[in-house]
Each structure stands twice: as C-alpha cells, then as structure tokens.
C-alpha cells in the first residue's frame, strides 16, 4: 500500500512540477529509453492511416509523456469523424447500387415480357443472363471486401510484430520477467497463427459458401444449397473457437503471471532491505523512480498501439459495412418488382459480407485485447510489490 501511494505521489509530482529537482535525470532517463526503444518504426505506421485519424493519436515525445496531458480526443469528435467516413464510403457505393438496381429492373421487365408473349425458353435464358450478371457483380464486390479485409489484417499484424517486442521489453524492464517470458512467445505465435488462419482458411471458406449459395439460387435442382449453409456454420464455429482459445489463454496467463512477478520482485527487495537497512531503502527508492519512468513509457506505447489498431481497422470495417448497407437498400428497392430469387441473392450477399465484417472485427478485437492485457500486466506487476 505504502509503495502504491509512493508511486502515485511520485507520478503526481512529476506530472505537476516539471521544474522539480528530481525531474532532471528523470527526463533524461525517459529520453534515453525512448532512444533505445527506437519508436520511429512505430510512428512510421501512422503513415498508413488517413490524415484525419492521425490527429487523434497520442504523441510519443518526452514533453507530452512527462506532462501526461497529451490532447485527449473527444468522443463526439471521433464519432462524427467515423460517421463522415462512413457516409463517404456509402457515397462511393452508389455506383454499385446503380448497377444492381438497373439489372434488377431489367430482370423484372423480362419476366413481365415472358408472361405476355409465349416463348418461354428464350425469355428464361435472358433472365438467366441477368441473374448471372447479378451473381458476378456480387462475387466481385465480395472479392473487394475480402481483399480489404486481408489488407487490413496484414497491416495490423505487421504493426503488432513491431509493437509486441517493444511492449515485452518494457515489461521486462519494469520487472515483469515471468510475464514477459510467458507472454512474448505466446503472443508472437498466436498473432501470426490467427491472422494466417483467417486469411487462408476463413476467408476462402466464406467465399466458397457465398459462391455455393449464390449458384444454388440459379438452378435449385442442380446445386448445393446445403453446402453453402454448412460452410457458413463452420466459419462461425471456427471464429468462436479462435476467440475462446485466444481469450482463454490470455486471461488465464494474465491472472497468474503478474503474481509470480510481484512475489519475485518483493523477495528481492526484502533481501536488500534486510541486508543493510538504510542503503537498501535508498536503492529501493531509486529503483522505484527508474521503474516509474519505464512504466510511463509502456503505458503510453500501449495506448498508442490500442488507438492504432482501432484506426487501422476502422476504415476497412466502414468500407465493408457500407457495402452491406448498399445490398440492404437494393434488396428493399427491388423486392416489390423482382423475382424472389433475385431478392434472395441480395440477401445472401449481405450475409456473406456480414461474415467478412465479423471475421475482421474479431481479429481486431483479439489484438486489442492482447495489447490491453500486456499493458495491464506490467502495471499489476509493479503494484504487486
């Protein structure tokens, strides 16, 4: 308890009074650590973001770290920005909407013609052509969505690969030896595995299920409608399993490791204090200050990472979501005039795109969770001593 109060008061002192005598080496120490960490490669990732998002990221320079008052983004501003981007994506989707509606109307017209004339086979064929064009358009927009998702996942994984070593080494530096040795290899493996499983297994599965479902509307007798829904079920189950395994690992490890760290740190301090009472406590206090600086950096880097992941996934999510909305709108528009099969095709596309959205969001959520836990563990280990 005493230690916690001490660290907190230290943090307050450092935050409130930069001219305080203690802050000179403190600032130097933080500067040196930032230099050793080489945060430049993290800042390089901000280039991937759009201009508006970059303003919301916390800066990682010494002054802002010490003051602790880097401008906090207001939630309303952020929401407005996201809404604006969503509307922009929707506006870009107008093109797709126009194409779909025109084809739908054409198909409806052909159907009416077939009723009034008698030559059924010819009109049937024309309808089939319209239907196929619709299916091809749908598959194209699915390809766009899945490549957007793949890109986003690649970017996030690359970012994680440069963030994890930094967070782990800062975790080691603040004394979380057990946690770092447990978490670093685990996270390293899990991030790569999950990302490549989603890219190489889940997205193809979603594509297959979309294709089978779409085609089965074309000729209901000669297709595999069951296979489409089976694959969809499989995708949802796999995503659930990934998420459960991932969060289970993280939560269980996160509950145990910091306690072990805290105990080993406490033992070390107990030994120094019993060796020589006065000198021991002086050394212990120095350690507290040094660790405080590292902790400050670790939390700042962690928050930076969380926001980065959020913004990296925001644009692709909005893009896919806008596509879903376009399909919904087209479905609503065409329902009164079109054949029910066409409406079903649109519904299938919509649900497949939703699956892509869910897969992308799940990956982002897992990465988000792992950063949160990695940051939280360090704080826990420091406060446990």
């Amino acid at each position, binding site marked *: 308890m005493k230690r916690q109060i001490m660290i907190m008061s230290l943090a307050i002192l450092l935050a409130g009074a930069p001219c305080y005598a203690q802050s*000179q*080496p*403190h600032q*130097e*120490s*933080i500067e*040196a*650590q930032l*230099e*050793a*960490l080489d945060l430049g490669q993290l800042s390089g990732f901000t280039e991937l973001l759009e201009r508006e998002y970059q303003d919301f990221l916390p800066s990682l320079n010494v002054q802002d770290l010490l003051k602790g008052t880097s401008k906090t983004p207001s939630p309303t501003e952020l929401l407005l920005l996201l809404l604006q981007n969503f509307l922009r994506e929707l506006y870009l989707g107008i093109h797709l909407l126009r194409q779909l509606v025109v084809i739908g109307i054409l198909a409806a017209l052909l159907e009416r013609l077939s009723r009034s004339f008698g030559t059924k*086979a010819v009109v*049937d*064929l024309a309808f*089939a052509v319209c239907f*196929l064009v619709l299916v091809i358009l749908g598959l194209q927009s699915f390809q766009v969505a899945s490549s957007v998702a793949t890109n986003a996942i690649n970017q996030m994984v690359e970012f994680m*690969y440069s963030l994890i*070593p*930094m967070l*782990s*080494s*800062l975790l*080691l*530096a603040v004394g979380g030896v057990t946690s*770092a040795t447990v978490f670093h*290899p685990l996270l*390293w*493996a899990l991030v*790569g*595995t999950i990302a*490549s*499983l989603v890219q*190489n297994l889940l997205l*193809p599965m979603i*594509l*297959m299920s979309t*294709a089978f479902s779409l*085609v*089965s509307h*074309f*000729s209901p*007798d*000669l*297709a*595999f409608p069951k296979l489409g829904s089976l694959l969809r079920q499989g995708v949802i189950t796999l995503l659930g399993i990934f998420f459960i395994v991932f969060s289970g690992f993280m939560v269980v490890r996160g509950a145990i490791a910091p306690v072990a760290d805290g105990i080993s740190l406490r033992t*070390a301090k107990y030994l*120094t204090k019993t*060796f*020589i009472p006065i*000198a*021991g406590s*002086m*050394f212990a206090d*120095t*350690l507290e*200050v*040094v*660790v405080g*600086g*590292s902790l400050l950096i670790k939390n700042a880097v962690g928050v930076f990472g969380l926001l980065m992941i959020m913004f990296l996934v925001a644009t692709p999510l909005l893009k896919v979501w806008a596509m879903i909305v376009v399909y919904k709108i087209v479905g609503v528009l065409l329902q009164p005039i079109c054949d029910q099969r066409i409406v079903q095709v649109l519904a299938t596309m919509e649900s497949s795109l939703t699956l892509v959205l869910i897969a992308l969001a799940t990956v982002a959520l897992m990465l988000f969770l792992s950063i949160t836990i990695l940051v939280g563990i360090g704080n826990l280990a420091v406060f446990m001593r």
Partner: protein
Amino acid sequence: MYWREWLQTLLGLVVLLGVLEMLLPSGELAKYSKLVLGLALMLAFLQPLTILLNQDVRDLDLSWISEEASKPDVERLADNVRLAAATPFLRQDEPVLIAQMEQLLLSLDGIEEVTVHMDTQGRGSTLVEVHLRPFSDTQAETVARIVGSLLTIPENRVSVMRLADTRR
C-alpha cells in the same frame, strides 16, 4: 490453391448444367436427363476425394498455418532500455551510490576489501567495475547479481575482478 480451381469447375458446371436443363425439351425423358446431370455434378464434387486418397497425408504442406516472422531479441532490447533508464540516475548520485555500494558489499561474508568504479559517461561495455579481495568465481557471480539488481542495470554490464595486490 487447388480449392480455387475446384470451386471454379464446380460453379461453371452448375451454371452450364442449369442452362442445359433449361434448353432440353421437357418430354418424357426430362427426369432422366436431370438425373444424369445430377450424377455428373456429384462426380465433379467428389473429385478432390481421389487426390486426398492417393496422397500421403504426411506430405501435406501445413506451413501456412503459422507463418511466423523471426522472433526479435527482446532480452537485449530490455537490457538496453533498463540501462538507458538507470544511467541518468547513476550519473546524478554517483559518489553516494559508490560509497554505499562498497559498504554493502563489505558486509557480505568473506569479503575483506572492495572498490567500486562507475563509468557513467562513456558508452563502454562495462558500466560498473567491482574489484574484490579475496576473489572467487561464485563470489563474483553473487556480487554481480546484487549490484545489477540494486542499480537496476543488466548483470552483464557489471564486471567483477580481482583486486590487484599492488593497490593494497
């Protein structure tokens, strides 16, 4: 990427057979023609099965499941960070810390004389030099660990040496 070809074949076949069914005259034989088309589709669907059965399962390439990038050396980065964090404080309180460290080390069992040097300005490989008398390897290891943990610097930046007789 075999599954992609399979999917393409299957989808093409479904569309083709659908069109064919549409064009065929709907007579007495229509239901049989539908059966034949369905059988053809089934055959196409089961095509990967033959490959699976013929292939040795152990030859399957599953390396894509975990394409790991090479693991970076976190320990060394952590050592650098810890060193960078501690050095300014050591520089500030150098004389006091040296005196207290000597006093502390002298209180260890079996150490008669000790001197501590710090090199906080240079960027050499050793930051703290400890000279001991009498010198033993196990003792040196303990001393390095204690100094490292007290000053929060990595152990390999502490070098423990024999105190030269001439300096006595």
